[in-house]
């Protein structure tokens, strides 16, 4: 009898359906998402998009203003720097560095953080105490200072920068994952898995880890902005990825003493950093509200 009680659903006309679909996106952070997609896209395809070589310039073209200013040319849309290198191309390649650093750093930091968070939360006892005290100590040491010491002692390279930033990033993941695990491990389904004879790794990865993923995603988006700011600060201070690689932070530093003659050298890369971080923060806030409102207290 259930079979003939078919529910007749009124299908609205096609344009109305499209409109309804679009209406669902009304609360989506579309503008931030656009900038983020643009950031990732330019980062990946930098060599194909950039109109000029970012590391070579002609001295004849140095300090040219952006195209819309007097004396600017359409060949260099955002102008050129003090060595005649195209600003637009450098900003585009800078996206690549920021993207790579942020991606690798978060990957490494997240793996370390999740592993230690799972272990600390699951086993408890002295292991938990030990790991969490390391987290406390790390959070009590100012990151940039630590980075300066390491860079001066070990030298500057992409790998060292990533390692330093990963060290800066993992404690927050560890602490949050641990908190989640403490809650999850008292749940019935974990007890059932144990009774069913599941091994510890299986319980951790198949049963508990999925419960942590939402927190992880939200935390990761919120950390991207922090990592990009840290990386650019290090490059600004001369302790980042070494020149002539165009990193946004060191580009801002290039223009420091030239604000009066060529304001665009500092302004453009800084604007790029701000746009990306701003978009990431707005996107992260939105994601947090959708996936995990409890994390609100994080900020």
């Amino acid at each position, binding site marked *: 009898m259930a079979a003939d009680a078919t529910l007749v659903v009124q299908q609205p006309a096609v344009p109305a359906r499209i409109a309804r679909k679009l209406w669902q996106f009304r609360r989506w952070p579309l503008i931030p998402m656009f900038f983020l997609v643009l950031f990732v896209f330019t980062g990946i395809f930098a060599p194909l998009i950039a109109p000029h070589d970012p590391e070579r310039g002609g001295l004849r073209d140095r300090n040219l203003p952006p195209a819309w200013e007097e004396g600017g040319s359409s060949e260099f849309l955002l102008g050129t720097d003090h060595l005649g290198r195209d600003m637009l191309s450098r900003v585009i390649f800078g996206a690549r560095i920021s993207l790579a650093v942020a991606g690798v750093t978060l990957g490494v930091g997240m793996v370390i953080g999740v592993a230690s968070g799972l272990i600390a939360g699951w086993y408890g006892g002295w292991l938990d105490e030990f790991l969490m*005290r390391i987290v406390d100590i790390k959070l009590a040491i100012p990151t940039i200072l*630590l980075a300066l010491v390491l860079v001066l002692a070990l030298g500057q390279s992409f790998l060292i920068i990533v390692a330093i930033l990963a060290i800066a990033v993992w404690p927050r993941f560890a602490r949050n994952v641990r908190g989640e695990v403490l809650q999850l491990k008292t749940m019935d389904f974990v007890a059932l898995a144990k009774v069913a004879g599941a091994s510890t790794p299986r319980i951790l990865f198949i049963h508990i880890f999925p419960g942590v993923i939402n927190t992880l995603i939200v935390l990761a988006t919120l950390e991207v902005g922090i990592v990009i700011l840290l990386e650019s*600060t290090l490059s*600004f201070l001369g302790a980042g990825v070494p020149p002539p690689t165009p990193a946004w*932070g060191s580009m801002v530093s290039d223009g420091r003493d030239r*604000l*009066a003659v060529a304001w665009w050298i500092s302004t453009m890369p800084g604007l790029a950093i*701000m746009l990306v971080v701003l978009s990431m*923060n707005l996107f992260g806030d939105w994601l947090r509200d959708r996936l995990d409102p409890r994390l609100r207290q994080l900020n």
Partner: protein
Amino acid sequence: MQRYLLRRILLAMVTLLAVSLIIFVMSRAAGDPRHVYLDDYSTQEDWDRLTATLGLDKPYYQQYGIFLGSALRGDFGQSIKEGRPSMEVIVERIPATLQLGLAAFAFSVIVGVPLGILSAVKRGSFLDMAGKVVALVGQSAPVFWLGLMLVFLFAVRWNDWFGDSLVPPYGRQEISSIILPAVTLGWFYAAANLRLLRSAMLNVLDSEYVKLARAKGVSNNIVIWKHSLRNALIPVLTFAGITLGSLVTGSLVVETVFAWPGLGQLAIQALAGNDYPLLQAVVIVFTLMYVAAALSVDIMYAYIDPRIRYS
């Protein structure tokens, strides 16, 4: 309470120990420390003397002991560039950094707190929007860039338009020199204060006891200033404590941008000049300030919030 404080103090000490260990290991990883002080013209006696002072003929753990012992006495060795004890150089720089930190802190409170209250009370108004912009810029713009843009606007462009810059763009010669660096350094924290206070105020304004106060006919001003603000200030106070410490490190960047002659600038100069003895001394002093600030907040907080005292 006592157990809590004991734990905190112990943690602070372990943190300092960890930092000293990192610095020691890094100073050895960077190469033979004798090369830092001596060059090709040094005699064999110089080498031997330095080997003895630094204890390089002893095993590593003893070397660390020597390093730690002299660090506790405030002896970090000679600054290479200045040619005098690192600690001496540092002590001269501390007042400038403290001054800048306090000014920035004052700015963050003066801007962040009223704007936070107003944007919660007059939600959706023009002020709320303005507050949002201040907060978004503060949390997204890199500090060094913000500083440069302020210099560009109020010194370079102002000079073009009006024939003179509004405030000095760098240095510490005049009293007004502190304005731009303090605003730059304080902006991020003003934004944080604003956001914290706004959401805390909104929570409190929505609570039962505020509704009760309103129902009893308490005037709007008293509800806001007495019932709500006092409770909303708790998270802001905690954060203020944390910021005091990180203002110290924020000064690294801001002092570099504005050529403000403090500890931060010194650290970057040491970095650029490969002056390792000076850098490690600055790092220890900075960490000490940071840890001390965090510790005093923990203690203060234990007094303010009974939940911490009894757990």
